[in-house]
């Protein structure tokens, strides 16, 4: 009996060592081996068959419960459309003007195409049920031109970044996983809508307890104010320019008193996603 107990303990120790090695090895690894890709794709197909009907039914019931708001929402939308029609005319004029100026200033092809993003529509296939590793799976993969580190957004705002790609599916790491300690997470360079030139900060942490993002390294002279809409700045390569991140809730002095930090309410709803867009940046000077 004593021998048996020792054997069990021995196996447990070996198991602990093996698993810590496995966790350490898989932490911060970016690629996937072919069995992993196969498993992801096989399950992705089945998951898609279940997720889409479930989201449709749930969406129907949610729409029913929001039926009373429809009238007010319609009013709101009508106003927005009127505004949009005006803005559209202005936009066209300015875009044409901009193109002409770029032509005159001899912009290279790369510079001209820099902000010409493509948006690929993707269905969500599944949600992770691990509270500390909340990933989302989408039904686009390397076959569709998805590469790691592409930004993913909904119509509301930034969701996250593609972390791993298989042939037909890919895994999205939402910005709720932002953590300065994680090696595989990409911080978001952010600015404020309407003050793009003057405002800058880095969003590097998500506070899971209060469900807000932390924006740090903001200069003390920064004009950022409570209620401002925070967008990606595009100054760091990963995230394209101009994706809405959220609204500023609070602004406070940072740890050493030299910089400011801001608390941001994310715009996208991470819980019940069914459709997302993958933002493809033009790859003019790439291979």
């Amino acid at each position: 009996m004593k021998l048996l107990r020792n054997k069990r303990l021995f196996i447990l120790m070996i198991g602990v060592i093996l698993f810590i090695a496995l966790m350490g090895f898989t932490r911060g690894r970016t690629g996937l081996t072919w069995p992993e890709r196969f498993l992801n794709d096989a399950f992705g197909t089945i998951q898609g068959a279940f997720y889409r009907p479930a989201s449709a039914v749930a969406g129907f019931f949610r729409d029913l419960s929001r039926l009373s708001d429809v009238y007010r929402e319609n009013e709101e939308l009508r106003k927005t459309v009127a505004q949009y029609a005006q803005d559209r005319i202005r936009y066209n004029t300015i875009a044409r003007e901009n193109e002409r100026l770029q032509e005159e200033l001899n912009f290279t092809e790369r510079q001209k195409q820099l902000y010409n993003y493509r948006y690929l529509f993707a269905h969500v296939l599944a949600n992770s049920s691990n509270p500390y590793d909340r990933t989302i799976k989408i039904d686009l993969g390397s076959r569709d031109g998805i590469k790691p580190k592409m930004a993913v957004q909904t119509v509301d705002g930034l969701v996250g970044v593609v972390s791993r790609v298989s042939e037909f599916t890919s895994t999205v790491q939402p910005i709720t996983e932002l953590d300065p300690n994680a090696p595989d997470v990409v911080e978001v360079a952010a600015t404020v809508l309407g003050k793009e030139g003057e405002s800058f900060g880095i969003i590097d942490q998500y506070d899971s307890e209060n469900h807000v993002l932390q924006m740090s390294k903001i200069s003390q002279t920064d004009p950022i104010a409570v209620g401002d809409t925070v967008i990606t700045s595009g100054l760091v390569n990963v995230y394209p320019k101009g994706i809405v991140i959220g609204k500023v809730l609070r602004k406070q002095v940072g740890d050493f008193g030299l910089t400011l930090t801001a608390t941001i309410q994310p715009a996208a709803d991470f819980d019940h996603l069914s459709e997302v867009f993958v933002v493809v940046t033009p790859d003019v000077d790439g291979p």
Partner: protein
Amino acid sequence: MTIRMNRTIAATLLLVVLETCVVPWLIPPAWSDRLFPHLAFIMTVYVAVFGGRHRAFFFGLGFGLLQDELFYGHMIGAYSFGMALLGYLCGLVMKRSRVSLAAVIVMAGIGSGVLDTMVYWIYELFSLAGVSFGYAVYNQVLPTLLLQAFLALLLYLPVRRWLVRTLPSSAADDGPA
């Protein structure tokens, strides 16, 4: 009594798919960051109860690894380790007691609590958890524990009916009772 492993594995694969695709839509938005049901773990407990600890060990290892792999975010291995260990421990406990509904439910509940705590500490070890221990216990482990016990209750009859085969007592060697 013994468990039909092939059917159990097929059923658990289906449950894993349901857990990741349908269950998130059934949980109300206000609770979506509190309830994280793990149907594969409940099935591991059933395997431990009806099939013995060694089967439960490999079952937990396999399905834990599957779950880790399908939602590979920061790292692989937390659920695989926890489910294998707890499957084995559940089998060890059940060797000494009789199979009853109450025992299964209590074990699924407590096991789920221990599993979630263990996963929390593994992520905290790599400083990836992002929340304090008190918050995790109060907001994630305890609500999930209650839900898991309830789900174990729901799954009890289907498991007894379709996945468990009653043998003549002479042939039941590794099963309990």
